[in-house]
């Protein structure tokens, strides 16, 4: 098969000095599905952004059909036959599929838009590849799976020869995923090369022809699928066999720390995202909440932390209600919070590590001097201690957080939250998108905190492996409600958990039992 794309010795350095790609090589052939795998932060997305003209690069070259191609912008990339389906869809919800698909290349004369023609073009391609999309439907009325198809349609209508899919299955149900695979294989038959970015090795094994593995911004290797198996790939990805299992002793929960009673939350769009959730956490145990993202888990965490106002129901920490209390007061009651989006809620990127680690405790009497001032000596001592304990790779405490890598930023955050002396730790997606080493450290610390210090831990995560390994008890949320409760998370299989998450199964309240 002919080679359509060659990315040679690509090197990309971000303005903060972070080297995202270093001499990366990627060769794509006509009509193949090529998996690009690697951990979060391995440089996959950056490489694809370079290919799609969204990022410039400092070294190497991109060859299309053997010729040097200078791709200056996404528009240029599209013109050269490259299409990209982003994790977040770029669509106008109020417009129809056809209007979205033909946006920017509208058929018609002059300023007039030929709606019929647009629908016809769209429908034709949808039918040819059996994408099952109705060209006249409004985006807002469609499900996530179909909206993804619209993104693919957009690329196809623009006659793409290379289609990039950035973690396309992350938002899909298993059934939808299967359907997508069938359609992708049809595209492949037509000679379209597909670059498939994923973490899910089973999917890679099932779908792809060849695999390129990236690790820490470098190419580890490319091989045909026949020579590989999931263990081999994961070894290439992390450079060692990942210890995915967390060893822990059985929990011995004592008194209740967190009580959540029938809470509800209506968001700005007036949708009831949390709809009657009740559970409790005791000292010494880790309770996990699993669920496909966007089913209310994040809101539950934010309600408990005080980031969202509690309007209906009751939340108590150590027996005291948090209703109407500020985040400050709730933190004083013994809550620590690792938020979902670390760059938005977890740190101030432009400020030094010191300020970031002190943010929740700068008013503490411990750091007071002469009444008005802060004791910088004590602060520096403590910060240096935290940097050492949590092995934050940095120059010194004065380095702005933005210059650190994702994993180290998360280390700064957990160092703060784990050292605040809390009775209750809310860990909301604590290891999303960070390296294995830090992930392991964070998971182990969560368990250790519960076991050794008697902290009550709430772990919200969409990483099944994480919730299953770390949690003692496990809750599953779907559509703002708890649909399953497992007394012992270690007895649950990923498959079973998946069925609850996707709403295939649901427990009755008797099956769930007392959730404290």
């Amino acid at each position, binding site marked *: 098969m002919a080679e359509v794309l060659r990315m040679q010795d690509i090197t990309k*350095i971000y303005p*903060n000095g972070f080297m995202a790609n270093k001499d990366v090589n990627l060769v794509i052939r006509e009509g193949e599905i090529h998996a690009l795998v690697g951990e979060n932060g391995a440089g996959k997305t950056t490489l694809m952004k370079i290919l799609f003209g969204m990022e410039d690069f400092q070294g190497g070259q991109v060859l299309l059909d053997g010729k040097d191609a200078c791709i200056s912008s996404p528009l240029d990339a599209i013109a050269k036959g490259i299409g990209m389906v982003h994790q977040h869809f770029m669509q106008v919800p109020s417009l129809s599929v056809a209007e979205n698909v033909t946006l920017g290349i509208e058929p018609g004369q002059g300023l007039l838009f030929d709606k019929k023609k647009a629908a016809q073009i769209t429908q034709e391609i949808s039918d040819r590849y059996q994408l099952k999309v109705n060209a006249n439907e409004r985006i807002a009325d469609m499900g996530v799976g179909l909206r993804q198809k619209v993104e693919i349609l957009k690329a196809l209508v623009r006659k793409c020869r290379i289609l990039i899919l950035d973690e396309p299955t992350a938002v899909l149900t298993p059934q939808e995923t299967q359907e997508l695979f069938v359609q992708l294989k049809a595209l492949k038959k037509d000679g379209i090369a597909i670059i498939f970015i994923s973490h899910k090795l089973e999917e890679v094994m099932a779908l792809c022809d060849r695999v390129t593995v990236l690790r820490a911004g470098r190419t580890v290797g490319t091989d045909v699928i026949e020579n590989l198996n999931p263990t081999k790939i994961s070894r290439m990805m992390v450079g060692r066999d990942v210890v995915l299992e967390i060893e822990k002793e059985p929990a011995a929960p004592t008194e209740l720390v967190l009580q959540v009673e029938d809470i509800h939350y209506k968001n700005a769009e007036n949708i009831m995202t949390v709809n009657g959730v009740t559970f409790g956490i005791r000292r010494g145990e880790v309770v996990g909440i699993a669920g496909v993202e966007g089913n209310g888990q994040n809101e539950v965490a934010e309600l408990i932390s005080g*980031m969202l106002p509690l309007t209906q129901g009751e939340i108590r920490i150590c027996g005291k209600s948090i209703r109407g209390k*500020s985040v400050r007061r709730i933190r004083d009651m013994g809550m620590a919070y690792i938020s979902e989006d670390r760059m938005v809620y*977890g740190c*101030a990127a432009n400020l030094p590590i010191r300020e970031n680690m002190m*943010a929740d405790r*700068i008013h503490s009497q411990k750091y007071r001097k002469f009444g008005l001032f802060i004791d910088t000596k004590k602060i520096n001592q403590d910060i240096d201690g935290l940097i050492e304990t949590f092995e934050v790779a940095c*120059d010194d405490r004065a380095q702005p957080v933005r210059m650190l890598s994702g994993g180290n930023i998360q280390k700064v955050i957990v160092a703060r939250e784990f050292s605040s002396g809390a009775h209750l730790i809310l860990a909301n997606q604590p290891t999303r998108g960070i390296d294995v080493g830090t992930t392991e450290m964070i998971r182990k610390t969560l368990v250790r905190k519960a076991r050794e210090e008697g902290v009550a831990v709430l772990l919200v995560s969409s990483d099944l492996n994480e919730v299953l390994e770390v949690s003692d008890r496990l809750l599953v949320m779907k559509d703002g409600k708890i649909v399953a409760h497992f007394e012992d998370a270690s007895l649950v299989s990923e498959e079973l958990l998946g069925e609850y998450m996707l709403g295939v199964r649901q427990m009755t309240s008797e099956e769930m039992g007392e959730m404290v």
Partner: protein
Amino acid sequence: MKETRKIEFGFEIFRIIVALAIAYGITLLCIMIISDDPFQAVYMFAVGPFTSIRRLGQLFGKFIPYLLTGAGMCFVYASNRFNLIGEGVYLMSGCLVAYVAVQLGGAGIPHILFVLLLLVVGALTGALFGSVPALLREKMNINETVVSIMMNWAMLYLATYLVKTKMYDNSITYMASKPIPQEARLTALIPRTQLHTGIFVGIIAVAVTALIFYRTALGYDIRICGANPKFAKASGINMTATLILAQVMGAALAGLGGAVDILGIYDRYMWTALTNMGFDGLIVAVLSKKNPVFIPLGAFLLAYMRTGASILNYTTEIPIEFVDIMQAVIILLIAAEHFLGGFKEKLIFRASKEKNKEVA
């Protein structure tokens, strides 16, 4: 990574020098075209402020209020609020200080006490008027920029009204207050220059600002709120109180600036238009990158340019409007975050590559 920080810092300095060079280049080109004696003009602009003690004094006359408004705007800018009230309170405070000075003049209050009292009046005026946009913003979420700009005009007209009705002086034909009594004025450190004792007030204010920024919990709060309000909220920082306090303190410093300026270099209160000193304070804060330690540098740079421009204006035939344009070019180039950004990235890229080579 340490390399990155060094490059970033060195680059800042380099960038300012290049910005100055380009601006002076453009200026020079224009002067060549419109001036009969371009060298004299350039000389006056660049070196003029240092050619006599009095001209140096004029530079200080600007430098002193810039220290205060710069520190004030640093509070506002660091908390990431675009509250421009500093402009209005500067003038309002000047007006009220002049009023109180005229009223209490001749009452036999000792010089030091009198001046201290007037400085307090200035700071309080700033805090009082400055609290309005701050409260409206933090309590009711009304845009602080709109409120402060509106209030600036309101304060201008209020001050004008006060001058007209309460400080009437029939020995002059223009709009100004009665003369400020001698015992209320800040004394010149060097006679017949504008270098007056207000410089101590300015230095103290900058030092206090730096102390608050880096040695108090409030300073941490302000910087965190300014850097990332969502993070501040999640960390349990009382944002409402912090941001109100930051803006009020900023306005108080701007008010102090107005008081010092009026008592330092004016015979009467005579501002019938916005003074631009508040906006200049914002420029100083931008030049010093929200870091109070750099305020004296930023204030000096701006004062130097403004003085050079003024001297250029009154010693040559270059029109004053042109002088304003030149200043704008320089400030724009210095303030522009991404000016020469590509060059910086290249430097970092090279350093990073070399480092990786060493590792490999």
